[in-house]
């Protein structure tokens, strides 16, 4: 049997890599992809905890389903925003949107 910690380790790695992507990438699309990685890491955590700690092991899976659904919605909406940004600035780089300052 695989120890629970293995899954947590995997999830942590995935989350950290995704976070690095969010911070380091400049293209809005790539940042969205990195967010997907982080969401996947969270889902792994939920399902692993459900399988190992919950008696019927279902609640975590249902939440993972919800995460996947929300992620789909998020990608759709975010792509709309990216397209909007692209039309306004002729680029999908988030550096172009830098008006949130003094």
């Amino acid at each position, binding site marked *: 049997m695989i120890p629970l910690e293995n899954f947590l380790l995997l999830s942590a790695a995935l989350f950290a890599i995704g976070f690095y992507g969010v911070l380091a990438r400049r293209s809005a699309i790539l940042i969205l992809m990195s967010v997907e990685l982080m969401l996947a890491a969270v889902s792994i955590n939920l399902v692993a905890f459900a399988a190992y700690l919950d008696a019927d092991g279902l609640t975590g899976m249902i939440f993972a389903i919800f995460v996947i659904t929300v992620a789909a919605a998020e990608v759709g909406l975010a792509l709309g925003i990216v397209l909007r940004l692209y039309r306004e600035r002729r680029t999908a780089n988030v550096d172009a*949107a830098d008006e949130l300052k003094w």
Partner: protein
Amino acid sequence: MGMEQVWLLPAIPAALFVVVALFGRLIPRQGDWLVILGMAATLVIGAVVILDFQSFVVGGVFEPGGENHYAFAWAAVGDALAIDFSTHVDAITVVMITVVTVVTLMVMVYSVGYMHGEARYGWYFALLSFFTAAMLLLVVSGNLLQLYLAWEGVGLASYLLIGFYWERQSAAEAAKKAFITTRVGDVGLLIGIILLWRASGTFDIQEIIALAQAGGFDETYLTVAMLFLFAGAAGKSAQFPLHVWLPDAMEGPTPVSALIHAATMVVAGVYLVARMLPVFDTVLVARDVVLYVGLVTALLAATMGLVSNDIKRVLAYSTVSQLGFMFVALGAGSVTAAMFHLFTHAFFKSLLFLGSGSVIHATGRQHVEYLGGLWRKMPVTGWTFLVGGLALAGIAPLAGFWSKDEILYESLAHGSTAVFVTLAATAALTALYTTRLVVLTFFGQPRDQAAYEHAHESPRIMTGPLLVLAVLAAVAGVVAFDGVGELLGFAGGIGYVVFTVKGHAFAFHPDIAATATVSALLAIAVGLVYWWGTAERAARARAWAPEIHRLLVNRYYLDDLYQATIDRVVLGAAGVVAWVDDRIVNRAGVDGGAQGIGYAGLRLKFLQTGRIPNYALAMALGIITLALVAFGTS
């Protein structure tokens, strides 16, 4: 109903103050009748309290059995400090309740006539009610902090009433002077209270007394604390060197002078020292200070009263002098004599003030240069004023005679011969200036014909209180005799019960009485010789020693000294402080801080790049820090 309900005494006037001050305009006659009725009710309740107190007197000694002290929690600071709101009734309280309620009621009735048609008539009565509330709270207080609250309350009332005619520059200044001068003493009182609390852990007066009697204080420490306490008493009771405010306080309406600056508030200091006398008894140095301050004050004030030409000012100096007498009695260790004199003095001095008010009301003048010969025009005022004057001079069998005799006896028995001689001489001076005042006001030729023509007897609402007070001034002294007390239904004699703190009995001393009477009669004779008719001899006496006269008229230059001190020292220090405030606190501190932050903002705003990944990075660092903190603390 009895001593447990003593809190009603301050509560009723306080409630009426709120009602009349807020809604006076809506009430017919601006609410004066409401205040007077409330005061009458307070008087009745006071009488009930006193009767209840009497019922606990066994064999001439008060045995409270825990029935005279009521408290409920007022404020608590953790376990370190618990302050009660408490009432305490004993012999001293009973005297004060009697004096305050009776004189206040008389003054209020008198004011209806005197203040008739004045602007702010309703506000005047509201203030009187406020003063009464504070004064009664002061006398029923069972602990020092509550007493201090009331103490400042009467000070505030005094300030507001002295400055009642604030449109007049001199009234506004006199109000300020009174408030600031008494404040000097009040700070001392506060320090004294804090010192006592620090050493004993309690504000309760009876507990402090018990602790002091058990030797629970360091003696030097206690001496210092009691001297601070006495500073407060000296400020409020206008004792040397803080006496300067009381003559100026005569700027207020005359009934106020009678009530606050003769009969009640100014005796608060006497009351405080009398209340704390068991503590003073354990530190005799402090008690001696009380005695000598009282003695100096009595003498100085009497000499100053001798040359003043303003009726009210003469009476004010007389008040200061008589308060000095009371402090001498306290310094000699006799609560009995001091409270007895306080009791009689309240009646005859308020009578004299109300009489002078009647004169001022009739002539519009209060300077003796414009008065004279009023006897025929104002018989009631004249007669009652004469009774008051004789009582003040100490002529038997009027009230002042008995109490002054008692004080003279105490000064000889527990002071020294020198003290006795000085005090007796002061008593003679008292008779002298009283004679001068009466003669210059009511006899001789009118010096201002217009004022004389205008003069008329005051309305009955004013002469009524005069007559009542005249009767009291005449007979108040005899309550000290056992027989009178028994006649009134007080077992053991009212004087014995009320004016006696365990162990001190009231007694009559023929030798001292004879000395005092002879010297007073002599002084009156001298006064008549000098001032009767054209006062030619008095003018010659002035010319003979102009320096002394100038010294007295200028009040020993004390006011000038204070003024110079304030100009040089206080204003100089204020200049330094102002410079520090302007340059260092204001420009360097406040402005500099603001400019520094503004400049920092100007530079640091570039930290805000507007790029969201930068913000996300900062947020991540914050989250990680929080996680590490949570990790570290779990």
